[in-house]
Protein backbone atom coordinates (compact mmCIF):
# COMPACT_ATOMS: atom_id res chain seq x y z
CA UNK A 1 0.00 0.00 0.00
CA UNK A 2 1.30 3.37 -0.94
CA UNK A 3 0.77 5.94 1.73
CA UNK A 4 1.40 9.54 0.76
CA UNK A 5 3.19 11.14 3.65
CA UNK A 6 1.69 14.34 5.03
CA UNK A 7 5.00 16.17 4.62
CA UNK A 8 5.14 15.22 0.98
CA UNK A 9 1.57 16.37 0.36
CA UNK A 10 2.33 19.69 2.02
CA UNK A 11 5.40 20.06 -0.18
CA UNK A 12 3.36 19.70 -3.36
CA UNK A 13 0.78 22.21 -2.21
CA UNK A 14 -2.18 20.38 -0.74
CA UNK A 15 -2.91 18.96 2.66
CA UNK A 16 -5.05 16.34 4.32
CA UNK A 17 -6.58 17.94 7.43
CA UNK A 18 -6.40 14.82 9.61
CA UNK A 19 -2.72 14.20 8.91
CA UNK A 20 -1.99 17.90 9.23
CA UNK A 21 -3.39 17.86 12.74
CA UNK A 22 -1.16 14.93 13.70
CA UNK A 23 1.85 16.73 12.26
CA UNK A 24 0.98 19.88 14.17
CA UNK A 25 0.64 17.99 17.47
CA UNK A 26 3.96 16.27 16.85
CA UNK A 27 5.66 19.58 16.23
CA UNK A 28 4.20 21.11 19.40
CA UNK A 29 5.33 18.08 21.37
CA UNK A 30 8.81 18.15 19.84
CA UNK A 31 9.35 21.81 20.71
CA UNK A 32 7.96 21.32 24.22
CA UNK A 33 10.45 18.48 24.79
CA UNK A 34 13.30 20.50 23.36
CA UNK A 35 12.47 23.49 25.53
CA UNK A 36 12.34 21.30 28.62
CA UNK A 37 15.71 19.77 27.72
CA UNK A 38 17.31 23.20 27.23
CA UNK A 39 15.83 24.46 30.49
CA UNK A 40 17.31 21.58 32.48
CA UNK A 41 20.69 22.09 30.82
CA UNK A 42 20.59 25.76 31.84
CA UNK A 43 19.75 24.78 35.41
CA UNK A 44 22.70 22.38 35.47
CA UNK A 45 25.02 25.16 34.37
CA UNK A 46 23.56 27.59 36.89
CA UNK A 47 23.93 25.00 39.62
CA UNK A 48 27.61 24.55 38.78
CA UNK A 49 28.17 28.30 38.63
CA UNK A 50 26.61 28.89 42.06
CA UNK A 51 28.75 26.12 43.52
CA UNK A 52 31.90 27.60 42.01
CA UNK A 53 30.95 31.02 43.35
CA UNK A 54 30.67 29.53 46.83
CA UNK A 55 26.93 30.05 47.14
CA UNK A 56 26.27 26.34 47.57
CA UNK A 57 27.94 23.70 49.70
CA UNK A 58 29.41 20.61 48.08
CA UNK A 59 26.61 18.53 49.50
CA UNK A 60 23.87 20.85 48.21
CA UNK A 61 25.53 20.90 44.82
CA UNK A 62 25.83 17.11 44.54
CA UNK A 63 22.21 16.63 45.61
CA UNK A 64 20.68 19.05 43.13
CA UNK A 65 23.14 18.02 40.41
CA UNK A 66 22.18 14.36 40.55
CA UNK A 67 18.49 15.29 40.47
CA UNK A 68 19.03 17.49 37.42
CA UNK A 69 21.10 14.82 35.66
CA UNK A 70 18.25 12.34 36.14
CA UNK A 71 15.79 14.88 34.73
CA UNK A 72 18.12 15.57 31.80
CA UNK A 73 18.34 11.90 30.87
CA UNK A 74 14.55 11.65 30.82
CA UNK A 75 14.24 14.84 28.78
CA UNK A 76 16.93 13.52 26.39
CA UNK A 77 14.91 10.39 25.77
CA UNK A 78 11.75 12.40 25.15
CA UNK A 79 13.55 14.82 22.83
CA UNK A 80 15.15 12.06 20.78
CA UNK A 81 11.95 10.11 20.25
CA UNK A 82 11.59 9.36 16.59
CA UNK A 83 8.35 11.07 15.64
CA UNK A 84 8.32 9.66 12.16
CA UNK A 85 7.64 6.20 13.60
CA UNK A 86 3.90 6.76 13.08
CA UNK A 87 4.27 7.08 9.31
CA UNK A 88 6.77 4.19 9.18
CA UNK A 89 4.27 1.89 10.87
CA UNK A 90 1.52 2.89 8.45
CA UNK A 91 3.84 2.56 5.47
CA UNK A 92 4.85 -0.97 6.40
CA UNK A 93 1.27 -2.22 6.26
Amino acid sequence: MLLIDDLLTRAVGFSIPGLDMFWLFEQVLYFAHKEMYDLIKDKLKENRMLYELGEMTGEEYMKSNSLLVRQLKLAEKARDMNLSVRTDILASQ
Partner: protein
Amino acid sequence: MKPGKGKRAGGAKDGTQGVGIYVYCIIRCPEVMKSFGKVGFGGEEVYTIEHKDFAPVVSNAIMKEYNVDEEDIEVHKAVVSEVMKEHTVLPVAYGMVFKNKKLLAVSMKAGNKAMKKAIKSVDNKVELGVKVVLPKDARDLDGKADQCKSDFVEALNCIAAETKPLKLFSDRLILNSSFLVDSGRVDDFSNAVGKLAEEYSVLKVQYSGPWPPYNFVDIQILGNKRGGFR
Protein backbone atom coordinates in the same frame (compact mmCIF):
# COMPACT_ATOMS: atom_id res chain seq x y z
CA MET B 1 34.93 18.52 15.64
CA LYS B 2 31.48 17.30 16.36
CA PRO B 3 29.87 13.98 15.62
CA GLY B 4 27.96 13.20 12.49
CA LYS B 5 25.06 10.80 12.43
CA GLY B 6 25.76 7.59 14.28
CA LYS B 7 29.15 8.72 15.48
CA ARG B 8 28.45 8.75 19.18
CA ALA B 9 29.04 5.40 20.66
CA GLY B 10 26.49 3.05 22.03
CA GLY B 11 26.86 -0.49 23.26
CA ALA B 12 26.74 -3.31 20.79
CA LYS B 13 23.31 -4.65 19.90
CA ASP B 14 23.84 -7.77 21.97
CA GLY B 15 24.50 -5.61 25.02
CA THR B 16 28.27 -6.23 25.15
CA GLN B 17 30.66 -3.31 25.07
CA GLY B 18 33.73 -3.66 22.90
CA VAL B 19 36.86 -1.58 22.90
CA GLY B 20 37.01 1.43 20.64
CA ILE B 21 39.21 4.46 20.10
CA TYR B 22 38.28 7.55 22.08
CA VAL B 23 39.34 10.89 20.57
CA TYR B 24 40.19 13.75 22.95
CA CYS B 25 41.42 16.38 20.52
CA ILE B 26 43.35 16.85 17.30
CA ILE B 27 46.79 18.40 16.92
CA ARG B 28 49.16 19.12 14.06
CA CYS B 29 50.99 15.95 13.20
CA PRO B 30 54.14 15.68 15.32
CA GLU B 31 57.30 14.33 13.74
CA VAL B 32 57.12 11.10 15.69
CA MET B 33 54.15 9.38 17.29
CA LYS B 34 53.70 10.82 20.73
CA SER B 35 52.56 9.38 24.03
CA PHE B 36 51.06 11.54 26.76
CA GLY B 37 51.18 8.82 29.41
CA LYS B 38 48.55 6.59 30.95
CA VAL B 39 46.06 9.37 31.65
CA GLY B 40 43.14 8.27 29.48
CA PHE B 41 39.87 6.58 30.48
CA GLY B 42 40.58 3.56 32.68
CA GLY B 43 44.26 4.53 32.94
CA GLU B 44 44.83 3.75 29.26
CA GLU B 45 47.74 5.30 27.38
CA VAL B 46 46.98 8.49 25.46
CA TYR B 47 48.81 8.63 22.13
CA THR B 48 48.66 10.17 18.68
CA ILE B 49 47.72 8.48 15.42
CA GLU B 50 49.23 9.97 12.30
CA HIS B 51 46.83 11.11 9.62
CA LYS B 52 48.27 13.41 6.93
CA ASP B 53 48.76 16.88 8.46
CA PHE B 54 46.88 16.11 11.65
CA ALA B 55 47.04 13.64 14.49
CA PRO B 56 44.07 12.72 16.65
CA VAL B 57 45.01 12.30 20.31
CA VAL B 58 43.38 9.05 21.37
CA SER B 59 43.26 6.22 23.86
CA ASN B 60 41.64 2.80 23.81
CA ALA B 61 38.31 3.00 25.60
CA ILE B 62 35.09 1.11 26.07
CA MET B 63 32.47 1.65 23.37
CA LYS B 64 29.60 3.12 25.35
CA GLU B 65 27.37 6.13 25.56
CA TYR B 66 29.45 8.78 27.35
CA ASN B 67 26.74 10.53 29.35
CA VAL B 68 27.03 13.64 31.49
CA ASP B 69 29.33 12.31 34.19
CA GLU B 70 31.59 14.70 36.02
CA GLU B 71 34.40 12.18 36.53
CA ASP B 72 34.47 11.21 32.85
CA ILE B 73 34.31 14.84 31.77
CA GLU B 74 37.24 15.58 34.09
CA VAL B 75 39.31 12.83 32.43
CA HIS B 76 38.58 14.31 29.00
CA LYS B 77 39.42 17.83 30.21
CA ALA B 78 42.62 16.74 31.95
CA VAL B 79 43.94 15.02 28.83
CA VAL B 80 43.20 18.04 26.63
CA SER B 81 44.86 20.36 29.19
CA GLU B 82 47.97 18.19 29.14
CA VAL B 83 48.12 18.22 25.34
CA MET B 84 47.54 21.99 25.28
CA LYS B 85 50.77 22.59 27.18
CA GLU B 86 52.75 21.80 24.04
CA HIS B 87 50.36 21.94 21.11
CA THR B 88 47.63 24.02 19.52
CA VAL B 89 44.57 21.81 19.77
CA LEU B 90 41.39 21.41 17.82
CA PRO B 91 38.97 20.32 20.51
CA VAL B 92 36.72 17.33 19.96
CA ALA B 93 33.28 17.02 21.57
CA TYR B 94 33.18 14.89 24.70
CA GLY B 95 32.06 11.32 24.05
CA MET B 96 33.54 10.68 20.59
CA VAL B 97 34.59 7.07 20.38
CA PHE B 98 35.20 5.19 17.15
CA LYS B 99 34.82 1.49 16.60
CA ASN B 100 38.20 1.14 14.89
CA LYS B 101 41.08 3.08 13.31
CA LYS B 102 39.59 2.75 9.86
CA LEU B 103 36.42 4.62 10.81
CA LEU B 104 38.49 7.27 12.54
CA ALA B 105 40.60 7.66 9.40
CA VAL B 106 37.44 8.14 7.29
CA SER B 107 36.32 10.99 9.58
CA MET B 108 39.77 12.54 9.59
CA LYS B 109 39.83 12.45 5.81
CA ALA B 110 36.39 14.02 5.58
CA GLY B 111 37.34 16.82 7.94
CA ASN B 112 40.87 17.50 6.70
CA LYS B 113 40.07 20.64 4.71
CA ALA B 114 37.96 22.12 7.48
CA MET B 115 40.61 21.32 10.09
CA LYS B 116 43.29 23.09 8.05
CA LYS B 117 41.11 26.19 7.96
CA ALA B 118 40.24 25.97 11.66
CA ILE B 119 43.76 25.49 12.94
CA LYS B 120 44.87 28.66 11.19
CA SER B 121 42.29 30.70 13.09
CA VAL B 122 43.14 29.28 16.53
CA ASP B 123 46.89 28.82 16.16
CA ASN B 124 48.75 29.93 19.32
CA LYS B 125 45.51 31.12 20.86
CA VAL B 126 43.54 30.00 23.88
CA GLU B 127 39.96 30.46 24.97
CA LEU B 128 39.18 32.40 28.14
CA GLY B 129 35.75 32.64 29.70
CA VAL B 130 34.27 35.57 31.58
CA LYS B 131 30.98 35.52 33.45
CA VAL B 132 29.65 38.55 35.30
CA VAL B 133 27.05 37.68 37.90
CA LEU B 134 24.67 39.90 39.81
CA PRO B 135 24.77 39.54 43.58
CA LYS B 136 22.07 37.40 45.20
CA ASP B 137 18.65 39.13 45.25
CA ALA B 138 19.89 42.09 43.18
CA ARG B 139 17.98 42.37 39.95
CA ASP B 140 19.33 45.20 37.84
CA LEU B 141 22.10 46.94 39.79
CA ASP B 142 20.05 50.18 39.81
CA GLY B 143 19.97 50.23 36.02
CA LYS B 144 23.76 50.04 35.71
CA ALA B 145 23.90 46.46 34.45
CA ASP B 146 23.99 47.51 30.79
CA GLN B 147 26.75 50.01 31.42
CA CYS B 148 28.76 47.39 33.26
CA LYS B 149 28.29 44.89 30.47
CA SER B 150 29.45 47.31 27.80
CA ASP B 151 32.48 48.32 29.91
CA PHE B 152 33.55 44.69 30.16
CA VAL B 153 32.94 43.95 26.48
CA GLU B 154 34.71 47.09 25.29
CA ALA B 155 37.80 46.62 27.44
CA LEU B 156 38.20 42.90 26.75
CA ASN B 157 37.43 43.06 23.03
CA CYS B 158 40.47 45.30 22.59
CA ILE B 159 42.74 42.49 23.76
CA ALA B 160 40.97 39.44 22.36
CA ALA B 161 41.35 38.29 18.77
CA GLU B 162 37.74 37.12 18.69
CA THR B 163 34.75 37.18 21.01
CA LYS B 164 31.76 34.92 21.28
CA PRO B 165 28.78 35.91 23.41
CA LEU B 166 27.21 32.86 25.02
CA LYS B 167 23.74 32.13 26.36
CA LEU B 168 22.74 33.87 29.59
CA PHE B 169 21.58 30.66 31.26
CA SER B 170 20.76 32.30 34.60
CA ASP B 171 18.72 35.38 35.53
CA ARG B 172 21.70 36.57 37.50
CA LEU B 173 24.11 36.59 34.58
CA ILE B 174 24.68 39.89 32.86
CA LEU B 175 27.61 38.75 30.75
CA ASN B 176 28.71 35.33 29.58
CA SER B 177 31.32 35.41 26.85
CA SER B 178 34.26 33.47 25.52
CA PHE B 179 37.32 35.25 24.24
CA LEU B 180 39.93 33.88 21.88
CA VAL B 181 43.20 35.37 23.07
CA ASP B 182 46.72 35.12 21.73
CA SER B 183 48.81 33.01 24.14
CA GLY B 184 51.22 35.92 24.57
CA ARG B 185 48.45 38.27 25.67
CA VAL B 186 46.84 36.14 28.36
CA ASP B 187 48.47 38.19 31.14
CA ASP B 188 47.19 41.46 29.63
CA PHE B 189 43.74 39.95 29.46
CA SER B 190 43.89 38.71 33.05
CA ASN B 191 44.98 42.14 34.25
CA ALA B 192 42.10 43.79 32.41
CA VAL B 193 39.62 41.37 33.98
CA GLY B 194 41.12 42.01 37.41
CA LYS B 195 40.83 45.77 36.95
CA LEU B 196 37.19 45.52 35.87
CA ALA B 197 36.40 43.18 38.77
CA GLU B 198 37.84 45.78 41.16
CA GLU B 199 35.89 48.58 39.52
CA TYR B 200 32.65 46.62 39.84
CA SER B 201 33.38 45.01 43.18
CA VAL B 202 29.68 44.61 43.93
CA LEU B 203 29.46 42.05 41.12
CA LYS B 204 30.84 38.54 41.06
CA VAL B 205 33.23 37.91 38.19
CA GLN B 206 34.04 34.37 37.20
CA TYR B 207 37.13 34.16 35.03
CA SER B 208 38.17 30.77 33.66
CA GLY B 209 40.70 29.21 31.32
CA PRO B 210 42.82 28.78 29.40
CA TRP B 211 40.59 26.33 27.56
CA PRO B 212 40.94 24.76 24.15
CA PRO B 213 38.97 26.89 21.69
CA TYR B 214 35.69 24.95 22.03
CA ASN B 215 33.57 27.95 21.12
CA PHE B 216 35.65 28.96 18.13
CA VAL B 217 35.92 25.67 16.26
CA ASP B 218 32.78 24.15 14.85
CA ILE B 219 33.44 21.33 12.44
CA GLN B 220 30.60 19.00 11.60
CA ILE B 221 31.86 15.80 10.04
CA LEU B 222 29.59 13.43 8.14
CA GLY B 223 26.58 15.13 9.73
CA ASN B 224 23.55 16.84 8.31
CA LYS B 225 24.15 20.22 9.88
CA ARG B 226 26.02 22.65 7.71
CA GLY B 227 27.91 25.37 9.48
CA GLY B 228 31.25 26.33 10.90
CA PHE B 229 34.28 25.18 8.96
CA ARG B 230 33.79 22.66 6.19
